[in-house]
């Protein structure tokens, strides 16, 4: 965060995108129409991408736009269109009073618990020594590539198997019904 020159500018935008993310997330869960909900979720994801950039994770920000909004959400919208689910259905798709009450309670409990964490990283800095990032020679991506292809090489390879299995599964499931 080498933002010594424009701290106010930086802070303003950070909060702005944060608010956008939060507001569109709230709008997303409250929309009846799947299409509208998906669009608000896309909006949240864009705001998150901006935040990633501001947190010095430019590569992840780009991937966020490409993968999440560009691929995953497009597939969602595609399915919504394919199944012609654009309009809200006759039956309410929100659970009954009790369901909402319980969900709300769990939600509040979660928020309260998680918000309590917000303080802790400030102390944390003193506890676990932050890793000193060596000066990067290969640009932003090199910083990510190094752990990915050294320490997490195995994880990287595993994702390929994971995708393979997922592709196969998706194809099997989405095929037409078997003939009797």
């Amino acid at each position, binding site marked *: 965060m080498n933002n010594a020159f424009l701290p106010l500018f930086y802070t303003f935008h950070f909060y702005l995108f944060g608010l956008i993310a939060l507001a569109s997330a709230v709008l997303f869960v409250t929309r009846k129409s799947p299409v509208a909900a998906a669009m608000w979720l896309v909006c949240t994801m864009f705001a998150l991408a901006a935040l990633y950039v501001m947190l010095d994770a430019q590569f992840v920000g780009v991937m966020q736009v490409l993968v999440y909004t560009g691929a995953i959400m497009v597939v969602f919208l595609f399915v919504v269109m394919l199944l012609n689910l654009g309009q809200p259905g006759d039956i309410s798709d929100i659970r009954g009073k009790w369901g909402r009450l319980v969900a709300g309670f769990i939600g509040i409990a979660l928020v309260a618990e998680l918000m309590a964490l917000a303080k802790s990283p400030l102390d944390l800095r003193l506890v676990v020594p932050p890793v000193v990032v060596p000066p990067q020679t290969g640009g932003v991506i090199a910083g990510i590539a190094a752990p990915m292809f050294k320490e997490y090489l195995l994880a990287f390879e595993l994702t390929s198997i994971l995708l393979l*299995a997922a592709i196969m599964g998706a194809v099997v499931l989405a095929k037409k019904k078997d003939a009797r």
Partner: protein
Amino acid sequence: MTFDLLIPSQLLGALTPDIVLMVGAMLLMLLVAWRPESDDHQRSVGRASLIVLALTIAAVLWFAGGGFAAGPGVIAVDKFRWAADIVFLLAAMGTIALGMDHNTRDGVVHAESHVLVLFATSGMMIMAAARDLMILFLGLEMMSIAVYVLAGMNRRSERSAEAALKYFLLGAFATGFLLYGIALVYGATGATNLSVIGQRIMAYQLHHTAMLLVGVGLLLVGFGFKVAAVPFHMWSPDAYEGAPTPITAFMASAVKAAAFAAFFRVWLDAFSAIDFAWFAPIWWLASITMIVGNVVALAQRNIKRMLAYSSIAHSGYLLVAIEAGTKLGAASFLFYLLAYTLATFGAFAVVATLTRNNEKGLDLVDYEGLWTVRPWLAASMAVCMLALMGFPIFGGIGFFAKWYLLQAALSSENNLIPLAVLLVLTSVVSAGYYLNVVRGMFMKPRAEGAPVIAATGPMTRLVLGITIAAILILGVFPAQLARWTRASVPAPPVAAATAAGQTASR
């Protein structure tokens, strides 16, 4: 020998059995696509899958026999891993064998299910090996995604599709919790490597850090979903009921075993220092799970749902082993896992034989008088029921599994006597529904309109025969198994103290 996991070739060496399975699965994918769908093709792919699994077992046994160990790194090379692998691989073999007959009988011709079982199994093996939360997460997802698909494999069946949907949504939801837990633990300790987390908790006195504790809590919720502990169990009866029965057997045995193996390793390796924080929650989780699982199972009329609740109850028993947290706890945990896997698998194998198109033959009423028409199936089912109940000799290994568990609980330093007594009392409750099946099969007449039972397929017979024989023989001679499980506790990485601090954090 000791593998230095920081060198890629050695890492590869330490993963040999996993690689055998993965490469085999990929080759079989090609084989599946080679010829058009047909029953013969399905069976030949199944046979090939069995061969791949057998090769993997051979590799695992070879590794388990040699004195292998590993330095600090993302995976563990210890007996715990090999023992868990054997459980998964055996269950996978059984699943594929059952699946071959099941597919033939219900006219489901796709061969992909066998390959997906292989992929799921390789995910499990990664979970059992993982000493890094990220690797664990990826293994879990490999397993889960394959099993989501497997649950919905019967494309003709509405129930199957529903089971897949419910399983998927709840599974993904649980993944979210698990992942957030990983993030928070990473935030608190700066590491995802289990042993490093453990060391840092001690080194920096993180015992009461809020972030760590919340992270552990979220991990607990995530694992709670995956092992179907009450109150995170609601997906499992539906998923178990709707999935094709061989897959249900797989879910109840291997999938659950894998989730538990990972759960156990994470808790023992990383969080044993903060046991004050999770002791009480798991205590409650275990007791509620035992009570609810057993009591609700009493009310079930569908055999698959009954077995699902029974498997929830068994999750409660296994949580007791985690609570014991000792080396003995680990040994009893593995022993129980194997016994439970055998018994559940046997039970579902019988159910798979009696099921028509995933819809008929699933009520408890359909089991009445089974003895008069299919004595062997009835006897096998009775053995499995008694094994799940923990009955000596007739229930074979089930008794010693429970016995070992009780021993671990009673010898633990923590006061687990109430939990042990609860375990015993809920076992009595479980007699209510397990014996109900036995009673129906042996003491009631066959109903007039009871479904006609098709011939048991050859592979099913083989699986059932081996399973029941194993249950009974191990129930009389458990000494060797006891010795093996005692030796198969999770081992810390070799020379962890020196290198781990620097390497694993970045």
